[in-house]
């Protein structure tokens, strides 16, 4: 007990800390993490927004479970919303209406829950774009990218299952579309929908089943993956943007205690506050306008929640009549092709870090982020992917675009069909050129400095503008990157060149044949010398 005696345990805090530590060994954790450094940048907040929205969803969702009845038993609505009084509907719909109209603050919690869910997926998407465009997915973080990808898919699944729970007209039609899509799956489709819906569509089981997924299974898996995701952030330490004094071997920023705790903790309340503000001022998912689910009516201009838009858009863009009968069975290409396109797109997102690692063959750890312009091919691929997604997304609103801009529906669809193929190609080419142009500009700046606007007349009558050299910190930002050169195809130790090697060489040429090298001190010295003559 001599060690205890040496500790100062004056006052309540000291005694309480000692009590805890003697039972939990928590002082080790405080020593390890208390002054851990996190780098600062606004773009690092996107992941935080995602995490905080999830917490908000858990809090508001737990409240809603106390009042929501996940049952498709048919009841007659007797609540306060007059237009639906006396109408038959499921208990799910009726209880959702009661939460909205007969529970003080109930509508607010519903709207907080829904807005936070929309924000959750949006923040994950933006966070993924940040990670992609800065190359934060490179070694050693490839696996954390995969975990993040799973979180993205789970978030969409959570969104869709939650969206379907109130059993209103809109969500019912959403389920009908899922039913129709799954039916198209060869061999097992019919049986999968039969099992999913507990018989025929719509049946009386689906809401209860989705509820179990929505509040138990999916959140539990989400939570596990979030913990894994954050664990890796701690193991790897956060990436940082390049800059003077920042290297691959350090991390520059502020300690968790106290600065980061205050800023990140405060940011949680800001995110929560903004969601609460949206929920107070802006209606979301007014199910009372749609009414209870009925398989026969549907309103014009139906829209899924935003994150399902790209899938719905894919369904809309496929040309007519794509269905064949082969061996006596139906092959619904009009649904299978869109599903396949979506799966390939998602698989490409999942696999990109591994593909790039294979192409570059770079085995170093990377903790300094790339400026997007310094990785032109990657940035261009990202822009192409964003364009592809955006076209699919726009297609989900084809009818709204047509009515708002007074153009034909057919015109909108046909334009988007063309854009879906041409758009990514154009985006790739333009983005790559823009990146290279920006790199050239960086080179010029690093070599010649910036224009001062001061015009000097030389003794010979020539006018020149005086350039001011950058200081070493600003210059460092422009010159401190590694570029990549295409692989040279060389035989392996067995003296052979395999197909895989050829593919890799071709890909690396596609990635890196247009390259702009950073300014070197030799070049810079030469330039300075020349400018003095």
């Amino acid at each position, binding site marked *: 007990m001599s060690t205890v005696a040496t500790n100062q345990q004056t006052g309540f805090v000291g005694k309480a800390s000692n009590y805890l530590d003697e039972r939990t060994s928590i002082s080790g954790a405080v020593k390890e993490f208390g002054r851990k450094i996190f780098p600062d940048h606004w773009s690092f907040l996107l992941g935080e927004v995602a995490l905080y929205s999830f917490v908000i969803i858990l809090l508001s969702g737990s409240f809603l479970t106390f009042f929501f009845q996940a049952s498709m038993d048919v009841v007659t609505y007797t609540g306060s919303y007059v237009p639906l009084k006396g109408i038959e509907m499921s208990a799910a719909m009726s209880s959702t209406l009661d939460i909205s109209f007969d529970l003080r*603050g109930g509508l607010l919690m519903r709207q907080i829950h829904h807005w936070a869910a929309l924000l959750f997926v949006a923040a994950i998407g933006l966070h993924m774009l940040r990670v992609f465009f800065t190359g934060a997915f490179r070694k050693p973080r490839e696996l954390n990218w995969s975990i993040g990808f799973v979180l993205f898919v789970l978030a969409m699944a959570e969104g869709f299952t939650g969206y379907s729970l109130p059993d209103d007209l809109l969500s019912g039609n959403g389920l009908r579309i899922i039913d129709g899509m799954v039916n198209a799956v060869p061999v097992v489709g019919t049986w999968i929908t039969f099992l999913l819906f507990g018989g025929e569509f719509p049946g009386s089981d689906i809401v209860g089943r989705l509820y179990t997924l929505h509040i138990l299974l999916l959140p539990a898996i989400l939570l596990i993956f979030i913990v894994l995701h954050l664990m890796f952030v701690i193991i790897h330490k956060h990436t940082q943007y390049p800059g003077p004094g920042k290297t691959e071997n350090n991390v520059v920023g502020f300690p968790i205690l106290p600065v980061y705790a205050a800023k990140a903790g405060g940011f949680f309340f800001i995110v929560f506050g903004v969601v609460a503000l949206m929920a107070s001022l802006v209606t979301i998912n007014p199910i009372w306008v749609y009414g209870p689910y009925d398989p026969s009516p549907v309103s014009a201009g139906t829209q899924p929640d935003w994150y399902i838009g790209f899938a719905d858009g894919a369904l809309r863009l496929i040309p007519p009549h794509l269905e064949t009968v082969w061996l006596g069975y139906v092959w619904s290409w009009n649904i299978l092709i869109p599903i396949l396109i979506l799966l390939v797109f998602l698989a490409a997102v999942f696999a990109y870090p591994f593909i790039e690692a294979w192409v570059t063959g770079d085995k*170093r750890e990377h903790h300094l982020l790339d400026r997007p312009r310094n990785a032109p091919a990657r940035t261009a691929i990202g822009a192409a992917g964003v364009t592809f997604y955006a076209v699919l997304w726009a297609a989900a609103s084809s009818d709204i675009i047509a009515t708002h801009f007074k153009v034909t529906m057919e015109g909108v669809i046909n334009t988007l069909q063309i854009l879906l193929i041409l758009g990514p190609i154009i985006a790739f080419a333009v983005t790559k050129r823009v990146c290279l142009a920006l790199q050239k500009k960086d080179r010029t700046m690093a070599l010649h400095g910036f224009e001062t606007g001061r015009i000097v007349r030389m003794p010979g009558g020539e006018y020149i503008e005086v350039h001011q050299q950058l200081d070493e910190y600003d210059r460092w930002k422009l010159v401190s990157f590694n570029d990549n050169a295409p692989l040279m195809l060389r035989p392996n130790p067995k003296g052979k060149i395999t197909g895989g090697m050829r593919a890799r060489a071709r890909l690396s040429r596609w990635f890196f044949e247009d390259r702009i090298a950073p300014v070197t001190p030799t070049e810079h010295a030469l330039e300075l010398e020349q400018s003095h003559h």
Partner: protein
Amino acid sequence: MAKNESGPADIVPASGHERSTDVVLGTAVVSPDAFPDPGLPPHRLRVVDTDPKAAKKAERVVYALFYLSIVGSVFAVFAYMFFALDPNDLNSVRLNNLYIGLGITLSLLAIGIAAVHWGKAVMADHESVDERHPTRGSEETRARAIEIFKEADAESGFSRRSLIRNGLIASLVAFPLPAIALFRGLAPMDVDPNNELKHTMWEKGLRLTRDPSGLPIKASDLTIGSAFQVIPEGLADLPPHERLDAKAKAAVILVRMKPEELNWTSAERESWSYQGIVAYSKICTHVGCPVALYEQQTHHLLCPCHQSQFDLENECKVIFGPAARPLPQLPITVDSEGYLVAARGFDQPVGPSFWERLN
């Protein structure tokens, strides 16, 4: 690739002069001729570091915001009490939502902004530096890990006793099978989905009735250009659950046009209509949304979900959108009292395609 084993040297500074030869760079070009890192720029003082007045003000702002947050929380509780919900006044829902929400917003935003401001303007502003270490364990740790696995393998005989090991793997593969079987119970055991999907309520002599009232329709009720949502006679009287299941297949759209506007591929198809009145399944052949929009001028039916368009003049063939097949037609005629009835059921399954649709 062998160089990948080189341990800590895997990490190379971006400028990379010192250790660049020890690692696998791949396509990266690390030039020995690179600028030196100038190191962290000189620390810039904040206004609060130099001006005691500004520091005092920042402190005041932080605690004022924390107390403002309490005002927001209390306001939200009062709003809960005083903006009650009045069943006779829908506007009360709006006010309840608005004022509780604004109170909570104030309470949250004030805490958030106060804490962030505290962190940025009041707390010490020293940037610090942490060292990074390679993610992989040290050579010693890795060697010990491999040794542990070897010891465990030797002690258990996992590699050596292949019968035991294979038995373990096989049993682990087999043990989830009962769980999969259990999930068959998700849907009724005695029902074949194929059979269900291929049959609707419609059969010979069943009257066409209005949705949702269930009142029968006379041919004379329909003027040219009008359209009705139709359900089979008796559907409205089914118990609630069976009603939706039945309606999801049996919903029909009934339209009257001038007989000369209708083009038929055969005399038999023409006989499925009655004096220019035609009935088609309302369930889209794409993914099953109701084809709810009827364009009176063009005689097109349009599905609002994915914009498939069907041409009523030509047996509801697909003229645009993702659908592959025409809407199935319900053959109709009139009974002795002049009411519209089905001449027989649909000649094919309605709604979206499914694998066994033609079997």
